């Protein structure tokens, strides 16, 4: 069985389990998983960038752009259903990255990280100063229906959760396919040796630009899903600490598998919830210790546990 088929099968099983488990989950868990998936989408985009050799400290920009596009779009275009709102969020973030990528794709390493952070802080500043968008308070976002089902109905309760799960499934399978294609295989080649990639006849800058747009689209979808799940958006979504959290998830998860960011995000949300519950004053300390432990003992992320086991088995 090819690795692509194995991944698709694994993700399909995960999707099925999520569907079957939905009625059994308490409301808080449903919400927690939805938020984790939304953040996992952003981390999935970071996985692609990290494979290309780039770390972005500004994914909050696309996260917020997606959320605001969904929120503004639902009012301005009178979108009542959650599906077009999420689509709009992804497309808007991709369009923003297509523009900013013209500049970002020229930079690498710390310069890329800082420039991406700077752009996200510019958006944060703009949102804080725009009273039409609620300034620092933001505004409420709500979809009337999901897949045509009224959000208040019995089935509609699971609507956003199901939408998030389907988005994650689609994005993970799509990205896995992309990473296995000739084009996707150029990402690690660019990370290893840009000069040689150019000498093999491909444009490094175009590839970086494309991967930026893909990562941004995923972050935009994640932002729109978060807006729908929380029901509210504010400029904090573009703030650098939000971007930092995505990097946290990406490092926690590792880049070995497209499923890793979602597992990492769920774990992070669980850890945060319990840390907050049991150590309300020192929960950041718990999070920091967890991060330290991962870096020290699992430098390739949580997913490397599975890999090591597989290697040991063969």
């Amino acid at each position, binding site marked *: 069985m090819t690795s692509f088929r194995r991944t698709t099968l694994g993700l399909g099983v995960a999707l099925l389990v999520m569907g079957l488990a939905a009625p059994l989950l308490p409301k808080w868990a449903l919400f927690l998983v939805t938020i984790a998936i939304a953040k996992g989408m952003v981390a999935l985009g970071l996985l692609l960038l990290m494979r290309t050799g780039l770390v972005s400290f500004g994914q909050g920009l696309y996260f917020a752009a997606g959320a605001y596009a969904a929120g503004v779009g639902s009012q301005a275009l009178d979108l009542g259903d959650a599906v077009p709102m999420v689509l709009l969020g992804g497309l808007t973030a991709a369009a923003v990255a297509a523009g900013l990528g013209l500049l970002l794709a020229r930079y690498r390493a710390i310069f890329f990280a800082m420039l991406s952070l700077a752009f996200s802080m510019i958006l944060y500043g703009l949102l804080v100063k725009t009273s039409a968008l609620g300034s620092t308070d933001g505004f409420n976002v709500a979809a009337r229906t999901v897949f045509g089902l009224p959000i208040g109905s019995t089935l509609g309760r699971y609507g956003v959760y199901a939408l998030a799960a389907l988005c994650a499934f689609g994005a993970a399978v799509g990205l896995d396919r992309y990473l296995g294609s*000739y*084009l996707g*295989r*150029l990402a*690690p*080649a660019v*990370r*290893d*040796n840009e*000069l*040689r*990639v*150019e*000498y*093999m*006849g*491909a*444009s490094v800058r175009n590839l970086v630009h494309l991967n930026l747009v893909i990562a941004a689209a995923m972050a935009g979808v994640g932002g729109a899903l978060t807006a729908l799940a929380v029901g509210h958006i504010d400029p904090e979504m573009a703030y650098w600490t939000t971007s930092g959290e995505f990097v946290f998830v990406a490092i926690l998860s590792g880049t070995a598998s497209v499923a890793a960011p979602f597992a990492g995000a769920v774990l992070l949300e669980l850890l945060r919830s319990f840390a907050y519950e049991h150590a309300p004053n020192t929960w950041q300390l718990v999070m920091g210790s967890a991060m330290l432990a991962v870096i020290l003992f699992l430098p390739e992320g949580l997913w490397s546990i599975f890999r090591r086991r597989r290697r040991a088995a063969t």
Partner: protein
Amino acid sequence: MSPILESRGLTKTFGAVTAARDISLSIEEDTVVGLIGGNGAGKTTFLNLVTGYLKPTAGTVRFQGRDITGMAPRRITRLGICRSFQIPQVFDTLTAYENLLVGLGIVSMGRKAFVGSNLGTARPEAVADEMLERFHLREYRDEPASVLPEGVRKLLDIAMALAVKPAILLLDEPTSGVSADEKFSLMDLVLGAIRADKVTVLFVEHDMDIVRRYTQRILAFYDGKVIADGDSATVLSNPEVRRLVVGEPAPEEGAAPC
């Protein structure tokens, strides 16, 4: 025979340093040409100018009759000029097989853009395995490039350039960093693999034994200029070449220093 590669008055200066001065030469199709010269003679500069890594201060480069002066390396690669590097430029975290698949994948995605590649409709995966076979690299197929011995990395670097089946291959010191007793078997292997496709070869080399044995024609560089150009025996017996490039102080003093 028509020239495949031609340079006219090619000059490159870096501030006060002239790395290439007025280089005019032409390479015929289906030949093996050696490029010799001491350190700083301008050999690698010439390769960098031809492949577009450096833009010439003056002069032109023509490939198959087309002016390619100042084009980006990736465009020149697509026209059919590939090169290997003195220090192997491979993708360290990828396996030998994946390294080959990078270039082959690029060609197969843009077959229309790669006017100079003779890959045809061959499957990249099949060509990658065939190349590993041809360069005796099969045992390293699934090893990451970072753990391969230097000689193997060198072969992989050349295999990557040849895999996309260019019209001309420029090799930058294929035997540097390879031990003396391995260099002939390495060159036999490399040139055998390359000439199986009838690819034109221009290779830069320090080692006179190598150029004598494998080339039909030699270009001798000194101080950024071409000081001799002709069939191998004539150039190697040229007194100026012997003094400035080969490094023999005077013929009667006997053996050349190594």
